[in-house]
């Protein structure tokens, strides 16, 4: 097991290095002169030259990359041009919106998908199964931001139960903050749940056909125990993989939903930075989000190895 973990950690380190190189190439190399891009047409040549020097863009690319990546390892992602604040500080200040949104959506996803998938599989080819599959098919087809708009239309415009967007922060109280995140998390979680329902149903159906399940039934084990103990535990292995991949998608989806519900999270920070040509912020957010997704994928890989011993011996 130790060798398996060591191998995965080495692969993770290499992958994160490639992630950083990709971000660096797009932001620092592709534009030719990032200083000219930031200054735009209104910048004088002298001002552009000063910016180039202050950002260290006049040094060789390899030196710039090394400097940036070593800084990033210490938590220093540069300084925002728009806010004149450290990028790392800006990212941390937006996490209390994006992270709870993604976690709440993940909770919606798991609480909806696993019982529904289990129900569909145990009622295979009966009306309950067909209803669950139709709901899941619809969920996959509806774009997250459209379901967000429809939720606003219903709960905010028509019923007036919640406001259509905005976030007053956690200092105003836990419930008001959670209430601001409920609709976007529901829109985000419902879409992802639709995918997970299908995965859960298919994994449970596969296990229900196994010999050991038939043996358990033949021995007179109650159906509740057959499903809860013998089936679900084994079916969870592929479900964990899909759910893990979904977690990465939730982070990406949160960026869209933040725009629909005017939530001041990481996505809105990056979108605002694009408008202001604040390249250090875009670069920092991209590195942070991509690394987070890679680390989540790594954790899923590792969990898979723990859950299924066959994987780690391969």
């Amino acid at each position, binding site marked *: 097991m130790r060798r398996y973990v060591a191998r995965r950690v080495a*692969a993770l380190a*290499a*992958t*994160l290095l*490639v*992630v950083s190189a*990709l*971000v660096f190439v*797009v*932001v620092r190399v*592709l*534009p030719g002169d990032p200083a000219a*891009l930031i200054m735009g047409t209104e910048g004088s040549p002298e001002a552009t030259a000063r910016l180039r020097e202050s950002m260290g863009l006049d040094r060789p690319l390899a030196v710039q990359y090394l400097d940036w990546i070593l800084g990033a390892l210490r938590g220093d992602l540069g300084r925002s041009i728009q806010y004149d604040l450290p990028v790392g500080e800006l990212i941390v200040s937006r996490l209390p919106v994006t992270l709870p949104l993604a976690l709440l959506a993940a909770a919606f996803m798991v609480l909806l998908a696993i019982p529904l998938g289990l129900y569909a599989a145990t009622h295979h080819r009966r009306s309950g199964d067909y209803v669950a599959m139709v709901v899941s*098919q*619809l969920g*996959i*087809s*509806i*774009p*997250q*931001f*459209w379901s967000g*708009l*429809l939720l*606003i*239309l219903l709960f905010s*415009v028509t019923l007036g139960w919640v406001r*259509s967007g905005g976030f007053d922060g956690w200092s105003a109280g836990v419930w008001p903050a959670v209430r601001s995140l409920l609709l976007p998390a529901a829109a985000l979680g419902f879409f992802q749940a639709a995918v997970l329902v299908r995965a859960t149903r298919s994994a449970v159906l596969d296990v229900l056909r196994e010999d050991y399940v038939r043996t358990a039934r033949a021995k007179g084990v109650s159906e509740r125990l057959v499903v809860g103990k013998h089936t679900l535990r084994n079916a969870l292995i592929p479900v964990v993989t899909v759910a893990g991949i979904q977690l*990465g*998608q939730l*982070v*990406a989806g949160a*960026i*869209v939903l933040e*725009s*629909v519900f005017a939530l001041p999270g990481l*996505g809105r920070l*990056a*979108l605002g*930075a*694009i408008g202001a*040509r604040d*390249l250090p912020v*875009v670069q920092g*957010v*991209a590195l942070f*989000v*991509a*690394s987070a*997704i*890679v680390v989540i*994928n790594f954790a899923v890989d590792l969990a898979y190895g723990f859950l299924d011993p066959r994987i780690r011996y391969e």
Partner: protein
Amino acid sequence: MPRRRPLRHVTFTLGAAITLALIVTAGLSLVYTPADPLAMSIAARLQGPTGAHPFGTDHFGRDVLSRVMTGAVTSIAVGLIAVGIGAGVGMLLGILGGYLGGWVDEALMRLVDAVQGFPAILSALLFTAVFAPGVLVSMVAIGIAFVPAFARLARGSFLTLREREFVAAARALGGGDPRVVLRHILPNALPPLIVQATTSFPVAILAEAALAYLGLGTQPPHPSWGLMLKEAQNFLSLNPWFAVFPGGAIALTVLGLNLLGDGLRDLLDPRTV
């Protein structure tokens, strides 16, 4: 094996019908729309469905039905090109890694793992910071997001197939690497990749709409379903229909393509007989 008739397969037939309707609508919009999708009329702004405008009008008085029809072309074009980019680059990486193995495979898989950290939205954010936002950014960003899936599938197939007897025989008969790869292994590795392409297409349409909604993809005044939803958001209380029709078009299209993909998989997979 019993012969399966595609038209008797409900999922396949329904999916094919919806997809055909999408293609016909997009094709028709190139030669005919009920009104000019770009023509504005301030007097007719934010109307609900009427005889003259079955889907109503937007905040500039433009006919929503005509814009939804034209938006179908954008969705299909972005979907096709993005899947093409993802499949092309992904297959190339997967084939190289799977066939050559060793350190090349290891390096390429780390690249694929890294690319997996960039969902379409993140790549689009990065590209838009450097280049102007537009349809091209959408196509490339969505295409990049598809690369890992195609690369892994192609690599997996090549790893298995390169050990098979028919490949050894082809090599023993003097076949060089390009010939063995292109003539003998690739045709056998294609079926799962084709299924992957069909399932990626609706995902690309959803992603295009999301990017246009965020202002990172198709730019106004060009019609795009996602862009129309962004514009509709500010007028939800005045004219909810403005948000319903473009959103419905996306949902129906994605539903049709998903059903078609599921049906195709059922029909092509012998285990489902």
